């Protein structure tokens, strides 16, 4: 067994392409998303509706505009203009100061700035809103150094068009899911198919090794690599994006293990159906990757799909895993709330292992 696992590692390490896919891809994917968003946040066009126009609001406006992230596209004078500007898509955010801002700050604190953000692009919306809040808070901190009694300025942030920010941080759960699927299912199915293609599988079957030992030997290296990969993606998403981790990390890692096992059993199942590496590759691509990307809710929200596709999405393991990740990371939910999804993944794993064992036996009989 030990020798088997060692040999499998050697296969992987010797193959530079595999290594590149294994470790290059997660980094590139996560960073791609990262850069796409940081580029967009430069010079974001915003509108300003300043109903007081006093020294405080002017100072804040100045500070926001000089940050380099925002460009004042429109100076507005009436709240009604806001809706119109959003509709035309000219601006992404509107900063609204109420009347008599500076006076109110001292007479009836706390005062608040209203922030309207176009959340149809949820990632950008969230970043814009966060940036603005940070800048305002920075302003308050600076002022408080001179006048410690200065009250805080509250921000009332409203997301227009997509108030729940659906799709925010969608890419991290999606990326983890796709990569784990790719590495676990595709790589195992290809590596088993390769043994068949080269004829080494026959020799393994003639040897005293039990079929389960052969499968475990093939699978264990990929379990480890997939797990390391999941950790890398989580680390990157936390550092590059500030992806929150509201729930239990242990639970998340355990769930990832479950999903990895699911994907591996799927990979083994695919390999029992294919005799060559090419077949395994094509089967994984069409049976796994495309549905995973298209139907799991990673890119297209499942709610917007036609009914037949919504039903079809239920048999996508990735859909359930994405729900689990989001529940844990974003909503901070515990096992109580995701036992149904967990059970579905567990049943899928059992199903694929059962099918593979059956196939394996048929081949030997």
């Amino acid at each position: 067994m030990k020798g088997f696992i060692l040999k499998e590692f050697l296969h992987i390490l010797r193959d530079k392409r595999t290594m590149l896919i294994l470790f290059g891809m997660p980094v590139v994917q996560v960073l791609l998303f990262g850069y796409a968003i940081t580029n967009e946040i430069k010079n974001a066009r915003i509108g300003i509706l300043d109903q007081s126009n006093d020294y405080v609001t002017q100072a804040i406006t100045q500070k926001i505009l000089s940050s380099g992230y925002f460009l004042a596209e429109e100076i507005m004078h009436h709240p009604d203009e806001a809706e119109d500007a959003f509709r035309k898509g000219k601006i992404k955010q509107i900063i609204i100061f109420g009347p008599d801002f500076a006076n109110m700050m001292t007479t009836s604190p706390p005062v608040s700035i209203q922030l309207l953000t176009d959340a149809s692009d949820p990632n950008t919306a969230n970043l814009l809103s966060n940036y603005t809040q940070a800048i305002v808070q920075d302003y308050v901190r600076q002022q408080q150094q001179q006048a410690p009694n200065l009250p805080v300025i509250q921000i009332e942030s409203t997301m227009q068009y997509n108030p729940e920010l659906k799709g925010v941080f969608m890419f991290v759960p999606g990326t983890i899911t796709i990569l784990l699927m790719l590495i676990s299912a595709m790589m195992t199915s290809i590596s088993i198919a390769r043994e068949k293609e080269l004829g080494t599988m026959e020799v393994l079957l003639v040897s005293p090794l039990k079929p389960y030992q052969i499968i475990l030997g093939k699978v264990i290296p990929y379990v480890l690599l997939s797990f390391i990969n999941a950790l890398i993606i989580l680390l990157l998403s936390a550092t590059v994006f500030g992806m929150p981790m509201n729930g239990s990390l242990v639970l998340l890692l355990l769930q990832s293990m479950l999903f990895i096992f699911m994907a591996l059993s799927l990979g083994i199942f695919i390999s029992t159906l294919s005799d060559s590496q090419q077949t395994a590759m094509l089967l994984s691509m069409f049976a796994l990757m495309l549905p995973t990307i298209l139907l799991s809710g990673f890119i297209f929200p499942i709610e917007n799909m036609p009914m037949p596709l919504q039903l079809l999405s239920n048999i996508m393991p990735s859909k359930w895993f994405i729900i689990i990740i989001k529940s844990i990371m974003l909503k901070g939910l515990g096992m109580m709330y995701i036992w149904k999804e967990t059970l579905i993944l567990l049943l899928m794993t059992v199903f694929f292992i059962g099918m593979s064992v059956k196939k394996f036996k048929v081949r030997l009989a």
Partner: protein
Amino acid sequence: MEAADSKTVIRVRNLVKKFGSFVANDNLNFDVEKGEIFGFLGANGAGKTTAIKILCGLQKPTSGEIRVAGYDIYDQADQVKKNIGYMSQRFSLYEDLTVGENFQFYGGIYGLKAPVIRQRTTQLLDELGLTHIKNKILKEIPLGWKQKLAFSVALIHNPRIVFLDEPTGGVDPLTRRQFWEMIYSAAQKGITVFVTTHYMDEAEYCSRVSIMVDGRIEALDSPSGLKKHYRAESMNEVFVKLARSGKNSR
């Protein structure tokens, strides 16, 4: 319980293998003795691959009594597997591992301890005169060498029987000769060699030859005995005479 003749290493009685209504092996009976080079001949589709797979435990027979290396293939499959080596036409070595790593891996799956593997590797490479390529990746090695290495790897656990399924497919005549020298030297050490082949000149090298037609063994004797019986000049002629009588084979 029949007292197993210690000289008989493979004993096949009434072996039948059916795939649905198709009979791949129709009542095979034969014995193979220790140290023999047993040639297993037949046209494509005559059923020899099925038979070799059953003997190696890759497939289960429909019925029949079969003992390999003295063990029953139904009840003692593990013991059978420990005592046989197997090499197929496709060489069964890993192209992206070094020669040494291949030996190490195959020694490992037969449960050999690390020092034993090292000692066997050195010994086998020494016999081949290929010690200098121990750390070479298999991809960089010529085909003829790979094939000899595959044979050595099949012997790493000192099996009593080694099954060779068309081991010389696609290699040049000189390498084939050298390969048969290896087979001879293994047989002289008491290892039984069970070999299938398409080359009739190779059949001449075997101690005994069985020729399968349509799932049955039509002839089984030493090459000289067969030539005499069928009044033929060469094994090729014997084979053609027999194969023509079959329905399934051309």
